[in-house]
């Protein structure tokens, strides 16, 4: 039966249009395409906002609550990072790939994988490790979207920071996440993590 349906569908596709003019099809197709593409991107951007992220109580009660106390939420100049600034790649293809991965989180929220604080704490190490691996692999790209190495003034940093940044970071031997773990959320049990 499926074969028959597919064959019919293919025949319809191959047949020239009988009722509609070429102009209508081309212009109509173009407009429909614009609407589809615009709609798709709007919807995508809608899922890329903090309000969307914290509409799930897992995020609102755990990750977001912890972020509030950090310098990435409240600071002297009022520039702040929202969830997607750090957790979603800005590059379009990477973003789409990440969004597809995130569909697993929908599954999680439907079936309550992390619906209590205790479950979240139990999962924290593996959740954190995912992010560390991701940021290590892309050389802390999401950090560098705001923190540009080229424009860091070492003379304004304190001695300890200047020493680390001018050697390990400058040589590319280390990347941001190697040292700056747990800057926006609480840390998990760090036993066995390099540098702890």
């Amino acid at each position: 039966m499926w074969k028959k349906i597919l064959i019919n569908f293919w025949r319809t596709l191959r047949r020239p249009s009988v009722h509609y003019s070429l102009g209508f099809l081309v212009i109509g197709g173009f407009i429909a395409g614009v609407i589809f593409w615009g709609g798709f991107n709007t919807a995508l951007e809608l899922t890329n906002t903090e309000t969307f992220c914290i509409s799930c109580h897992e995020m609102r009660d755990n990750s977001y609550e912890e972020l509030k106390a950090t310098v990435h939420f409240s600071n002297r100049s009022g520039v702040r990072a929202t969830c997607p600034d750090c957790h979603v790649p800005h590059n379009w293809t990477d973003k789409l790939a990440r969004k597809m991965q995130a569909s697993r989180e929908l599954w999680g929220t439907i079936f309550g994988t992390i619906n209590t604080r205790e479950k979240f704490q139990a999962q924290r190490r593996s959740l954190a490790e995912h992010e560390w691996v991701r940021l290590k692999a892309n050389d802390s790209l999401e950090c560098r979207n705001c923190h540009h190495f080229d424009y860091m003034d070492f003379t304004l940093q304190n001695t300890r920071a200047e020493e680390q940044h001018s050697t390990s970071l400058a040589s590319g031997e280390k990347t941001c996440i190697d040292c700056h773990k747990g800057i926006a959320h609480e840390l998990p049990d760090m036993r066995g993590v390099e540098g702890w």
Partner: protein
Amino acid sequence: MKNLILVIISLSLLFLSFTLTAQADEIATLRDATAISEQEKPNAIPKIVNTDILQARNYPMQPPLIPHKIRNYQIDLEVNKCLSCHSRSRTQDSQAPMVSVTHFMDRDGNFLAEVSPRRYFCNQCHVPQADIMPLVGNTFKDMHTLMKERVNDMRMP
């Protein structure tokens, strides 16, 4: 007779409570005698000293002061951020001073392999310093100063 005793006791209690409240009013606290219902204009929050320069201790047993910021340093069941630099195994990389060996002792004086649980919460004793004049005067002199003064006193009677 019984009544008289009762009256005396209650009178003395009343008097005591009056003197206590009177005293409470006189003590100038950090609130500068602002009524509890009023909001005093708060002072600016001072900056934390972040020089990374070791400060001398005022007496030998003083817990060393922290010469850097510790905002959001996590010290809990999961991790101890301080120990990520100051633990024995991390000091070579971090070049930070190691936690004192006394911190490896349990209360019976046995040395453990790691920092003893009772010494785990660093900021129970170790504190950073704010860049501010002391709110309360202090005439503390350390032993060396006292001894020097005494020697000088003996030389010039």
